[in-house]
């Protein structure tokens, strides 16, 4: 018990305390130990208030804290109710105020597609897969602050597949030493595009290379992620995450009923993704930006001895001259991936790369081009040829934004693959509408 108390005390002393008052903070003047410490070390991490207390004071404080906690347990009511909030409610005191509701956004993506043949070269779960109208997705996005320690974000997606949970995770706000953790259902930060949602894409459909190598829903699952912003002169952020792979990621032939004899101590972590990434960024002046990432992942499978090793690198270069009409920019992005799949039957390798150029002409118009190539030993199900299957896809589109909340995109794509008899042409017209409050995306 004493050890647990000491551990709790040490942990609490590492975490920054939230402000003591909820009123207009900068006009009132509560004595705040944090303020004095922060003045002395502006360039370092926030100092712990307890760091300078000597051992005797520490012991006294610890005893007092334990005492207070015990008292609080006996006095705290079962449900904490804030009487002040009720008086604002339109429900007349029965329902909590809606002023603290999360930010809600509704994002709809609908497309009209036309393909020149069956089996189009599309790898994303929300890509148009056949000619005609398709509701790519309707996303309900919820974001909010939980308390001074966490924020959360969730997005529910409805599409032809049904209603599914895209992401639902909490993010820490006050871990020390530049750390930050996320936990929940999340898209991992493998590469640049995996963690993005369709409304942040520069193309109607997802990447062919990422869809084939990371999965049709991307590298996603329930798990936890830890990242740290290193105290270096330039932006360096290592990220690690472990997620239990989504149901969608299972191979078709792996679906089996689980017998008692099959019980696995690791449970769903047997089919998990462990990833690590290193993100770096350099501002090359006011107008130029360069971001570089390195990612690796180990995807284990339920089958003993079977796993995927993924290695990837990504580069993003953006030129945005600041000045009159500063919405114009040119962005160049590339991701290269290598996957080594080890299976009972042997090993196979896939190598893929994507290159995209987005030219934002002004705040209303953009044109974009993307080329992707994937050389893999895994053809589509049913492919009976031998040797690596080379797939290539080139796309060109133009986008109109009447405002930043609505978007119309016309896209043409040409796909050529060894396991397709002839090239596949694709023409898509996509409309996206964003209503409500949606937070900013990463750069």
């Amino acid at each position, binding site marked *: 018990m004493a050890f647990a108390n000491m551990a709790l005390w040490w942990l609490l002393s590492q975490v*920054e305390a*939230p*402000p003591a008052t*909820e009123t*207009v*903070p*900068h*006009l009132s*003047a509560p004595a*705040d130990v*944090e*303020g*004095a410490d*922060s*003045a002395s070390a*502006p*360039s*370092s991490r*926030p100092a712990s208030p307890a760091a300078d207390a000597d051992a005797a004071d520490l012991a006294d404080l610890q005893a007092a804290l334990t005492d207070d906690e015990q008292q609080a347990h006996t006095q705290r009511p079962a449900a904490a109710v804030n009487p002040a909030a009720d008086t604002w409610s339109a429900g007349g005191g029965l329902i909590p105020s809606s002023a603290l509701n999360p930010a809600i956004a509704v994002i709809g993506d609908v497309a009209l597609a036309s393909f020149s043949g069956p089996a189009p070269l599309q790898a994303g779960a929300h890509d148009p897969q056949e000619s005609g109208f398709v509701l790519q997705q309707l996303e309900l996005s919820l974001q909010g602050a939980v308390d*001074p320690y966490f*924020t959360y974000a969730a997005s529910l997606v409805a599409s032809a597949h049904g209603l599914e949970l895209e992401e639902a995770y909490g*993010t820490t*706000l*006050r*871990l020390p030493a*530049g*750390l*930050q953790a996320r936990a929940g259902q999340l898209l991992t930060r493998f590469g640049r595009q995996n963690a993005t949602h369709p409304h942040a894409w520069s193309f109607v459909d997802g990447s062919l290379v990422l869809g084939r190598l990371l999965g049709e829903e991307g590298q996603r699952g329930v798990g936890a992620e830890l990242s740290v*912003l290193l105290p270096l*002169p*330039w*932006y360096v*952020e290592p990220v690690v995450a472990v997620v239990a792979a989504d149901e969608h990621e299972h191979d078709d032939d792996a679906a089996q009923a689980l017998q008692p004899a099959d019980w696995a101590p690791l449970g769903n972590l047997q089919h998990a993704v462990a990833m690590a990434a290193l*993100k770096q*960024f*350099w*501002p090359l002046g*006011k107008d130029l*930006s360069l*971001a570089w990432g390195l990612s690796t992942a180990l995807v284990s499978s339920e089958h003993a001895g079977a796993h995927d090793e993924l290695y990837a690198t990504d580069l993003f270069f*953006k030129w*945005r001259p*600041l*000045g*009159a*009409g*500063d*919405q114009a920019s040119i962005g160049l992005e590339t991701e290269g991936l290598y996957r080594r799949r080890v299976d009972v039957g042997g090993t196979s390798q896939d190598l893929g790369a994507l290159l995209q150029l987005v030219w934002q002409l*002004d*705040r*209303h118009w953009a044109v974009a081009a993307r080329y992707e190539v994937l050389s893999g030993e895994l053809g589509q199900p049913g492919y009976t040829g031998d040797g690596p299957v080379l797939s290539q896809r080139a796309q060109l589109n133009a986008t109109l934004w009447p*405002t*930043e*909340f609505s978007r119309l995109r016309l896209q043409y794509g040409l796909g050529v693959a060894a396991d397709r008899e002839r090239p596949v042409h694709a023409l898509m017209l996509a409309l996206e509408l964003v*209503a409500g409050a949606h*937070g*900013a*995306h*990463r*750069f």
Partner: protein
Amino acid sequence: MLRILSLYLALGLVASAPARAALSVVTTHADLAALARAVGGERVEVAALVEPTQDPHFVDPRPHLMLQLSRANLLIVVGLELEIGWLPTLLTGARNPRILPGSEGYLDSSTLVERRDVPAAAVDRSQGDVHPGGNPHFTRSPVAARHIAGAIARALGRLDPAGASTYRRNLASFERALSSATARWLARLAPYRGSRVVAYHRSWVYFTEWAGLEVVDFVEPKPGLSPDPGHVAQLLRRMRQDRVPLILQEEYYPATTTGLVADKSGARLVRCQGGVHLAEGDDYVAYLDRLVEAIAQALAAGAAPAAGAGGAR
């Protein structure tokens, strides 16, 4: 031997450590940085996240800005959702609890200002990119600047009690400079009180209210929408009919259309800087000096060139 070497190394590192300012202040808008510099003086390191040549609504949340925020003791924002499109990403990524909203190191300057353009009825985006809490473009108003500078001095005094008297002194001298400059500016603009002006974006209400001017129309048909031919034609008709003498816009908006409208209507176009160019040694009073002079000259009939006068650089 090794011990001596490591001693020399330690001494070398200590000796080469640069003198540090007591506090690191980061602001979003350049005007807020100028006010922080005026109040903080040499005791603070001040940086603005947004270049004055940049539209503060649309800023790329470039990751290196997170580094600046991670080391800040005080973050001063404009508020009223001006920075809502990019600041939250940077704040989350900066992992600095000192400057999170609600902390002592977070100063929302919109709470210090008497807000204008607060919608009386429910708003939605069919009215354009509206700010539901009120108009956030108040940093150009000397009235607001006085209140904000006072709050900055109080915030700095709480974070750095040893420098509190210095901040009060700096605040007093800034207020004196601002008062005498304000008297001068109002005198300069007095002959033109009540003049009608057209503004590009709805970012001038605080300034024109103080200066005694009246904004009668906007080049943007709705907030955030680029001018379209129909609206521009209507604007031109109105400007000719009412003999509006002046168009005001910030340097980060395109000037081709407004230049044309100015030529055809006989009005003058004043393009002002988006904020104080602190990096070039500019300060708040000098910035407003140039702006007031440019406006006064433009309003005086035939006294100044049509475009690029005064405040623009």
